[in-house]
């Protein structure tokens, strides 16, 4: 009985710890939105578009702030295209992107860049390279965060 209690306690402690390790929303959060919204398509869309707009607003706000401090640096840091697709298109492409479980742990801000690359029809080898780079980067960040 005690053993079972200890195992349950470990699970309870371990699961939130896993959640804490996550720095950004990723594929699993994206897919969970539908469940949170009780599979209501309109509500899921509103939540998704709210998140996407949040990322884009956060990016733009700090781009403008960085630009007032160091223009060249800001322009190089925020060089990626993130507004090629409209929010509605972006939500659709993100749905498709995260339908592949192998992309599940790529952060949503990276996925937004990748989806815009798809929209711009950038060669697939470059997109694959960026996806690999994003995976390496997020793994490294999580490891450093844990340490």
């Amino acid at each position: 009985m005690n053993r079972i209690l200890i195992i349950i306690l470990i699970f309870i402690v371990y699961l939130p710890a896993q959640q804490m390790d996550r720095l950004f929303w990723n594929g699993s959060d994206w897919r969970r939105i539908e469940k949170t919204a009780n599979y209501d398509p309109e509500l899921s869309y509103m939540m998704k578009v709210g998140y996407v707009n949040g990322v884009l607003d956060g990016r733009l706000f700090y781009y403008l702030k960085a630009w007032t401090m160091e223009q060249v640096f800001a322009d190089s840091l925020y060089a990626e295209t993130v507004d090629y697709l409209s929010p509605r298109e972006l939500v659709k492409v993100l749905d498709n992107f995260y339908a592949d479980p192998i992309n599940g742990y790529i952060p949503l801000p990276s996925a937004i860049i990748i989806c815009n690359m798809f929209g711009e029809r950038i060669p697939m080898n470059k997109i694959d390279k960026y996806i690999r780079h994003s995976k390496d980067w997020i793994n490294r960040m999580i490891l450093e965060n844990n340490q």
Partner: protein
Amino acid sequence: MFSRKIILVGYIFAILFAQRENRIFWDGSNWNRISTKLGQGSESVYQIKASHLNGLLDGRLYYYLKAWEVEPLLAEGTYNDPLDLLRYKELITALDNFYSVPKHNSIPIISAVIIENMRIGGISERSIYRYIEETRFWVNNIRASADSMSVEILASKLDKHLSKPFNISERYGRGPDYKQKEVLIKPRSPLKRDGDNDKNSWYQKLIKGWAIGISGGINQWNTTDSLNSSGSNYNFIIKSPLHFRTENIESRIRFEAGVMNFSSNLNGQKNFMYVQVGLRESDIPIINRIKFDIGAGSVIGTRSFSSGLIISLRKNKLDLITRFYSAGTSNKAQLPSKWSLFSIAFNF
């Protein structure tokens, strides 16, 4: 009265949509619209607001980490705003309060998050007020710039459009491959110039341009010894395809074969070739219907030459022919040297 109301409502809609177009960030109106749309106190409202806040924080963190890898000092300076002093639930409640004041509607949500975190972090109200005013100022500046940019974009598009040479194919998006119809000015129906004409077989080319007709008229000569000798003529007309045409001049060759008789018991055949030359595209319409007519042939076995005028009463259908003949030298006894002929000709 009713139409006035419609115009007013349409105008309000147009203004509202135009206002929404140039909004850069999500702001108080977006925040409040979520509650309005889904109903106050709904769990969905909280979920959507939390999603947006998650997005804001993720966007900030993502670019902070990217910047930190390249320029740690600059990243620390840029991303030093306090954003994580409140939990989501508290933050949402604080933002609801903040945006309940209508004058805060234009403040972006991300700035409002900073403001509420400043408030909870113990920053003085005076500093917070200054921050709000500064935010309002730069947001309005950006919005005004976006407005003027829109106007500039439209103006540059108009310039680009007006600088283009007029080309109806491009205007209607037919693309450069579109084969334009070549339309002649005068013909009744537009003519296409395409490859079909060149595909005609040799006999079609040969018979093309030929036409036939008939004519009939009266003759009269006025020599001193045979005054008032008159007669009639009937001719079969062959209009040949041998003609040339420039912008101003048109000429055509035609043949006539028929019979001719006079009151002085002179009867016989007539075989003639005529060349008709006339002006075209003249501003005076009657000029375009008149052709100078010269001919050579035989009349009742006598070599003869003619000159005259042809007036088309109905274009290419009915001609009034006036000719003045001079007989050749081979058989002067039968035919006087000068006589005139009037005839009405029908061409088909």
